[in-house]
């Protein structure tokens, strides 16, 4: 289609294969999409890590500025989302590594693995943040 457009040929309407919007959202499909979205979020989230590390390497004032942002309501929400995305993507990665060994493709195991990913990531993130607030004195 793109080639036809590039050559200036008239576009022929051809039947399209069914895509996302036609299917009921099953858990494996949702987890697949979420895996990609969390990956994309983590990609840009590395900017925050780089900023924080550079701030720490530059001096107390710069670190204080960065910590002020991360300690603010918006900063905390962003960080919470970032840790969830990180843990979720990691657990999703484990699922994909299992599938890479050509195991766990029967529908029951697929469902179990996918539900474990989301339940596991939410549980671990909440536990981690409980630990952060406990250790950080609720900063």
């Amino acid at each position, binding site marked *: 289609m*793109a080639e036809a457009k590039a050559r200036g040929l008239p576009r022929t309407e051809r039947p399209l294969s069914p895509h996302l919007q036609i299917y009921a959202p099953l858990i494996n499909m949702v987890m697949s999409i979420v895996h*990609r979205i969390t*990956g*994309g979020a*983590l*990609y840009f989230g*590395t*900017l925050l*890590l*780089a900023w924080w*590390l*550079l701030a*720490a*390497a530059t001096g*107390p004032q710069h*670190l*204080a500025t960065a910590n002020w942002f991360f300690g603010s309501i918006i900063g905390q929400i962003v960080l919470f989302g970032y840790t969830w995305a*990180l843990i979720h993507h*990691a657990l999703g*990665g*484990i699922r*994909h*590594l299992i599938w*890479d060994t050509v195991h766990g493709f029967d529908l029951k195991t697929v469902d179990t693995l996918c539900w474990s990913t989301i339940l596991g990531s939410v549980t671990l993130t909440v536990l*981690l943040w409980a*630990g*952060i607030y406990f*250790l*950080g*004195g609720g*900063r």
Partner: protein
Amino acid sequence: MAMRTPLKNVRRLGSAKEGTDHFWRQRLTSVALLLLLPFMLWIALAIVGAEYETVVRTLGNPVVSILLVLFILTGVVHMRLGMQVIIEDYVHTEGAKVALLMLNTFFAAVVGLASIYAVLKLSFGVAI
């Protein structure tokens, strides 16, 4: 008799000349990141809400520094491969695709180098 010709199969490294290189690197880095992730979370918990001196001393510790650099390096390689697939999946205009693929590499290189620079600066600047 099977109605198939040998041309059906990919020979040697295929038309892109890289075989399963992309797939393999993605898996290799994912396993490395999974191994490193617990340490990273542990380090994060160790310095959350800490004073500047504690933060610098912790990050400047040789073991912590080396693990951080490994994590950053593996992370940017992994995320560059992932974003490459996303770009190839959704961007079909040749010019934009090539530009974004280049930008993807630049982004990974700059973020990775900046982070590693910061860690090394912290580490080399601290007397143990």
